[in-house]
């Protein structure tokens, strides 16, 4: 179903604008995909567990800015590149982890519903990213881009890492006990607890995972842009959630598919770049994504046998 939709979209845009299938444009779509998919992956776990994480976009921006500060300091101190990159990854992931842990604390102990807790975090992280960077890209480093142009076939090295993470996440969600607990909590939290599952600890880990993946996205975007932009992840939480929902997840929890999230992300990437290539006014892509969410949610509601 999703594959058919994706195929139809690609065919449509290719017919409108043949450049759509050029290798340059495909590389662009791949980079777009990698800038979004990890957010979708984290969001898939969160939504499967019956929650929602609205903070992933601004966590991307914020971790990218902090990571860029750290890498700039190291570059100024003439550290070698491998060290700089490793520290960048660690700092971005660490910042994302911190954001995820704060989300989990707000949900578990301050007893906020996930929507409110992560909405507050969305505002806080986006605001701090802008304040700390004065609204300017941080640590412009022309070499950063070269990391993403070194290639193995059509894939840059960072994109290979992203794809590997997606594969591991797919295995984890659908084949391990961790994934099983995630679905169980989203399906019936009381039943999960009554079966002896430590629900609070699991919820902490799910939001932490989502945060770390947002942090890694911050690093990926840094490498792509060559700087930590305070608006790098603006509105990306909506695209990530849309991808998960298009992929067949239920916002009530208990239902999600990693393969669906991957296809959902590709569909969003295709629509977004297709609209740009077809010279349609830029902000229409947001409208298009909104329409896709509405369509996916409606189809889900109409699907037979789906309860609650």
């Amino acid at each position, binding site marked *: 179903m999703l594959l058919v939709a994706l195929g139809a979209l690609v065919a449509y845009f290719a017919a409108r604008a043949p450049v759509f299938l050029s290798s340059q444009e495909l590389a662009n779509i791949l980079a777009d995909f990698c800038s979004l998919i990890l957010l979708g992956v984290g969001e898939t776990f969160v939504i499967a567990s019956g929650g929602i994480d609205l903070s992933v976009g601004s966590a991307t921006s914020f971790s990218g800015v902090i990571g860029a500060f750290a890498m700039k300091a190291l570059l100024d101190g003439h550290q070698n590149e491998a060290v700089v990159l490793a520290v960048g990854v660690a700092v971005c992931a660490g910042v994302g982890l911190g954001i995820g842990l704060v989300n989990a604390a707000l949900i578990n102990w301050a007893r906020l519903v996930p929507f409110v807790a992560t909405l507050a975090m969305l505002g806080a992280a986006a605001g701090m990213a802008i304040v700390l960077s004065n609204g300017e890209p941080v640590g412009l480093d022309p070499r950063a881009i070269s990391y993403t142009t070194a290639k193995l076939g059509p894939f840059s090295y960072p994109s290979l890492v992203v794809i590997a993470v997606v594969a591991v996440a797919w295995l984890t969600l659908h084949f391990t006990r961790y994934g099983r607990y995630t679905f*169980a909590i989203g399906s019936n939290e009381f039943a999960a607890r009554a079966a002896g*599952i430590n629900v609070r600890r699991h919820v902490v880990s799910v939001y932490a995972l989502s945060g770390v993946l947002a942090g890694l996205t911050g690093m990926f975007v840094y490498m792509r842009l060559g700087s930590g932009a305070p608006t790098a992840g603006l509105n990306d939480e909506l695209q990530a959630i849309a991808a998960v929902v298009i992929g067949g997840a239920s916002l009530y929890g208990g239902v999600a598919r990693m393969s669906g999230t991957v296809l959902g992300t590709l569909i969003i990437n295709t629509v977004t770049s297709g609209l740009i290539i077809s010279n349609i006014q830029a902000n229409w892509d947001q409208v298009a994504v909104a329409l896709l969410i509405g369509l996916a949610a409606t189809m889900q509601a109409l699907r037979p046998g789906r309860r609650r």
Partner: protein
Amino acid sequence: MAGQAVLYEAVNVSKSYGSVEALIDVNVQLHAGEVLGLVGDNGAGKSTLVKVLSGVHPPDSGKLFLEGRERRWSSPHDALAEGIETLYQDTGLAPHLTIGANVFLGRELLRPGLLGRLGFMAQREMERAALHELAQVGVEVKGSRKTVSDLSGGQRQAVAIGRAVAWARKVLLLDEPTNHLGARQALEVLNVIRAARDRGLGVIFISHTLPHVLQICDRIVVLRLGRVVRDASTSEFDAESLLGTITGLLEKSP
């Protein structure tokens, strides 16, 4: 059961939800190889007592003793680990998971070797074993890969009962297990409970169907508005006096 040691005991247990006093100074003793009936009107506190005994709620005051040792459950996990298994009223299964996943929830079988240590589950074995476990306790379902939401209310109840009975090692707490069941199925459940008792388990059986309670229980505890108002051998009750004790009308009549 005369002469037998107490298996599981609640001593002076109280539990409130905010200003609602759901349990007040409750004392209950459960023996091994005994079915204890727990009856009372809606809101009497039966489910709350079950949740205290199963580790969902810590009591506000009072103590729990398992085999003579005082125990404090910090979560259901602790009680499960001690062989206390519970069927909760209406809420025990995860509807989006398969029957097999529900039967093994919290006790997943892992694959051998490295994959298992990474948390990979032996899904097929669990599905197969789940059907086997359920059949062992007299619950027949076709296809454990069905999700629970595809089952009828009666089938769901059967799976939940089967799971609890299959895993229980010491204590079996059954909160209205015959709800949603047809007459035939309900009688089968009573047989399953008898078999569990004969295995030496201590069983607490909650039901509003008084003939069932009188038929299967060795002893009956009556709760009213959070207090134990009667605790006696089943032979001391008949249908009328049991109903009278539950409603409180018996004492008021001359």
